[in-house]
């Protein structure tokens, strides 16, 4: 990289910086670049956590597919995780339009773990996944805005409750 390029911001970044300031307020951005709406960082946070929640739901789907006679609670827990993802992506007071996220897009999340052999082992793996998710959601709540923190704490509570109820089912399968 040349010295000049290192010292001076590119034209693009100058315009991007201007776009978030007074010029954007006036609705006029020179240079022909289309104005980009500022993306609320919380929208990205919500999309990222929603994907974590969906991964949990997919683990349930895999267990139900492998063990069709498994506890019917599993399907309702999976549906609750789907509701969590919808709540995270849905409109919230004061948040920017969530349409800027791409909820359907594949994300570079960790590969799905292999299905354990036997229903009890599969349930145990779900218990561990729910417990880890609840701890993670609790930490995320600690860093979030008040509205999102309240939602994340509730989701953490739901995940912890799933783990507790599933623990009771392990060994009865």
């Amino acid at each position, binding site marked *: 990289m040349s010295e000049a390029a290192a010292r001076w911001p590119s034209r693009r970044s100058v315009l991007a910086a201007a776009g978030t300031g007074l010029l954007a307020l006036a609705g006029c951005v020179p240079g022909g670049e289309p104005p980009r709406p500022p993306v609320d960082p919380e929208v990205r946070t919500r999309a990222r956590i929603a994907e974590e929640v969906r991964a949990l739901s997919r683990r349930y789907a895999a267990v139900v597919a492998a063990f069709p006679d498994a506890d019917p609670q599993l399907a309702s827990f999976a549906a609750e995780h789907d509701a969590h993802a919808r709540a995270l992506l849905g409109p919230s007071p004061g948040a920017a339009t969530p349409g800027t996220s791409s909820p359907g897009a594949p994300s570079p999340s960790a590969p799905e773990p292999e299905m354990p052999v036997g229903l009890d082992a599969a349930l145990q793996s779900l218990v561990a996944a729910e417990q880890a998710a609840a701890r993670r959601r*609790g930490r995320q709540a600690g860093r979030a805005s008040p509205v999102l923190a309240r939602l994340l704490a509730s989701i953490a509570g739901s995940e912890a409750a799933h783990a507790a109820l599933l623990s009771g089912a392990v060994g009865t399968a």
Partner: protein
Amino acid sequence: MTGRDEVAVLQEVLAAEHAVVYGYGVAGARLTGGPRRRAQQAWDGHRARRDELAGLVTGLGGEPEPTATTYNLPGPVQSAEDARALATLLEERLAAVWADAVAALDGDLRDLAVRGLGEAAVAAARWRGGSVAFPGLPERN
């Protein structure tokens, strides 16, 4: 958030914990065996949390909310089934108070509220024998 605001939020949770301690006393009397032991453990746990909250309020310069002399129960508690329904309701209402505290508090106190909501959600699910998608958020369930 000022210490006075934090005290107001903690007093709300403290008042709710007083009610829960009272309610478990009523519910436990109608239970036997394992559920009775579970109610006893819950009663102990909520009394400890109540004392912890009173200590936090005092530490922030407040006067801890005292327990009320009487509480209105949602209905008569005459059977083990009534007792389990009451215990579920107590934990659900407590979860909602903790959820509002999560939004109102920061730092260590928010972490306490997150734990409080989680414990109430688990206890409610055990008494209910099932889960809800959004414990503590009555507007979503």
